[in-house]
């Protein structure tokens, strides 16, 4: 197990290196310069490029960047006069808080709806849930976000729509962000759960006279959840990247908003730094999910 984890971490580092290198090359291939703005003259741009080392050959910039990275330095933002580490440190808590809340919510509600869809005998409930599940996967988060804002913020005036200053402020962004993943998880749970209830061991358990509750939670759910838990890895990634639009709409000071702005502004160091950060987050999330799977199902052995 420990060997497995170490191996996965090493692979993770190689993946991260490939990600950084690729992003570095791509970012520098993007046309446009971070300093070309309407109100800067040519000589001012030259001075700035010199100050930030952008006049050096690209391979040299790459080496300098990698060296700083090994020291944990992600560089200085060209646009903000602030280190990328600081930008991440002040933005990430909000993004992660909203992302994890949305994720926890989607897991709990998604699995519940999934099981419900599977066990209910009422055709109406089934259809309603199915309609939601279809809607949830097909409507993008920003549309949901704008509608939630309009209905609950503007028309009903029940919840605030700007920022995250009180717990109530979390309601809309978290709901908007969880809307899609809930549907995906529900659909997934429904199919795996239905499949699991038809297995031989369920008939065996019924024959043994176990209570429905015991059958459901101890036998069926445990087996039905493995594909769902496997999906959690990408789901965490999804809730974090999904926050890019949600943060823009609800004016949340997270890294998503910062990231999108950095791309339009050609703020190379911020784009790179955030890619590294999010990449590392996803690698770790996937690892944790794999370990979780092996805990749920001992048949999955974490060797090589």
């Amino acid at each position, binding site marked *: 197990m420990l060997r497995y984890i170490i191996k996965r971490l090493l692979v993770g580092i190689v993946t991260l290196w490939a990600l950084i290198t690729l992003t570095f090359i791509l970012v520098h291939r*993007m*046309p*446009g*310069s*971070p300093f*070309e*703005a*309407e*109100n*800067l*003259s*040519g*000589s*001012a741009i030259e*001075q*700035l490029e010199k*100050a930030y080392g952008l006049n050096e050959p690209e391979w040299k910039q790459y080496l300098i960047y990698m060296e700083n990275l090994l020291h944990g330095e992600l560089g200085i933002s060209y*646009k*903000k*006069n*602030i280190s990328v580490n600081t930008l991440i440190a*002040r*933005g990430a808590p909000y993004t992660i*808080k909203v992302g994890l*809340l949305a994720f926890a*919510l989607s897991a709990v*509600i998604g699995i519940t709806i999934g099981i419900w869809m599977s066990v209910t005998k009422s055709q109406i409930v089934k259809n*309603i849930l199915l309609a*939601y599940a279809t809607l949830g996967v097909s409507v993008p988060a920003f549309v949901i976000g*704008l509608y939630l*804002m*309009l209905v609950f*913020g*503007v028309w009903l*005036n029940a*919840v*605030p*729509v*700007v*920022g995250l*200053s*009180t*717990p*109530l402020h*979390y*309601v809309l962004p*978290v*709901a908007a962000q*969880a809307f899609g993943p809930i549907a995906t998880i529900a659909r997934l749970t429904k199919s795996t759960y239905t499949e699991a209830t038809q297995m031989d061991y369920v008939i065996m358990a019924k024959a043994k006279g176990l209570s429905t509750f015991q059958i459901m939670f101890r036998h069926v759910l445990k087996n039905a959840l493995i594909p769902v838990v496997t999906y959690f890895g990408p789901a965490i990634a999804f809730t974090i990247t999904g926050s890019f639009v949600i943060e*823009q*709409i*609800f*004016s949340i*000071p997270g890294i998503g*908003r*910062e990231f999108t*702005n950095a791309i*339009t*502004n*050609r703020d190379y160091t911020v784009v790179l730094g955030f890619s590294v950060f999010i990449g590392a987050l996803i690698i770790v999330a996937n690892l944790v999910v794999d370990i979780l799977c092996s805990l749920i199902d001992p048949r999955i052995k974490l060797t090589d």
Partner: protein
Amino acid sequence: MKKLWKKALSAVVAASIAAGLTACGGSSGETAETKADGSAYKSVTTTMSMEGGTLDSAGIISYWWWTYNGYATGSLVELAEDGTFKYILAESVDINDDMTEYTFHIREDANWNNGDAVTSEDFYNTITRALDPNCGNGYSSMLFSIENAQAIYDGEADMSTLGVECVDEKTLKFTLATSTPYFMDLLTLPVYIPTHRTLQTETNGAWSMGEDMDALVSCGPFYLAEYVPNQYCLFKRNDTYVLKDDIKLDEVKTLAMEDTQAIISAYKTGELTFAQADYTVLGEYKDSPELVTLDSIVSNYELFNVNKAPFDDVKVREAFSIAIDRDAVAAACGENYTGSTFFVAKKLISKASGKTWDEEAGGELLEYNVEKAKELLAQAGYPNGEGFPAVTYKYPSTQLESDIAQALQAQWKENLGIEVQLEAQETQVNISDRRNGDFDICRMQWMADFADPFTYLAMYMSTDAYNDNKCACDAYDELMNQSMTETDTTKRYELMHEAEKVLVSEYFWGIPVINRQQVYLMNDNLVNRVIDPSRNTIRTKYLDIQE
């Protein structure tokens, strides 16, 4: 069902984060507090762009600084609505006859909010730091009217030769290289705003990033009391401000917001009391006193690459320019747009006559004339557009620019029989291509830095750094040079009108297309809406709340 889980959801969310959060108090939705004397505490909540740059007037200037400037900086003078200058930190100025020496007398009671006097050294502190090219300030060139400033910036002269002299603590003297008729206008630009001579000396330092609030002293109507990065700035009334009686509000909170739909929603929920909206609210608020529209002084136009075929032929340029029905283009963009045949923003107020620029000009510069356009095209060797080379129009991929591009494309096709290729680009790429001259026709827009037509017109003089299409028109250069030395305002404006006419309707350097109106939503109890004519926006600092 859905309602139920929504309720459950809110409860779960609220409960689970209540523990981990400390709520920042004082949201705008709260009921108004009262002050010790029983009067209502007056607070306005509006928006600001995501910060970038610093608060150093001599450092990296971006949106954040402009927000800050609206509340917490002081200038020698500011432009009043009627086009005259209102003294702020200065109480008077002596100007010599040939307008090359300006001696400002700073008010005796002008102080920083830590009690220190505002002195000439504070202005000197900003100006000298902004003449170091490493400061990253985009406005350094606005100092070049001052004697030797450019040479110092270029490293060719010593700072001691600079034409700025601190005669005594309260007297500041500028010696200009040549007469600069718009020099007073420049005084509200970042590089002329004082920074504290001992506390604010490190360019782009920690103090300018809101990390050292003790050093971030203010000599303006408000001071920055609270700052949470990427979230909000809270400006509180500065009781030591020289003209404090002009200021009625107790605080202004600016929230970092960018998405226009989100801003409109937040206004509707009451989280904002004053917001910049867009055309989408024009219908809904049509008869509401909350809707305010102001003519913007942004000019939208298209540049020709005058040095490359086919647009090196002035006849082709003229054909393209007069084959456009500008009102139709404006209609395609939204109700708050109008066509313009002027390069300078139509509604810029003239300091010579107090009229708007287009009124003062007395007539349109271009006519919509399809027949003549076709004829010109035929004379240039392309009858009915036959044999016309493939040309591309480059523009940033925003909604507005796409609307303009499609309207122009349709008209050129219909009126001239020429299919212009459209290329939507990311903004940074578009700027890059324009700067490098890599285009046939390129979109451009300009917002004045100060309220003088010179800031538009100077760009296309053959020697100017911003002359992106490298247009070189001798007659135009000549008129502009004359205007620069003309000390009589009326004559100077006449020269500039004439220069614009040459540029737009004789040389056809590009195509003026539209101007827009800025759309605002503001609570109707917000009164005392003073306009800043140099940007044609409402000066939030002077607002008052009617009780």
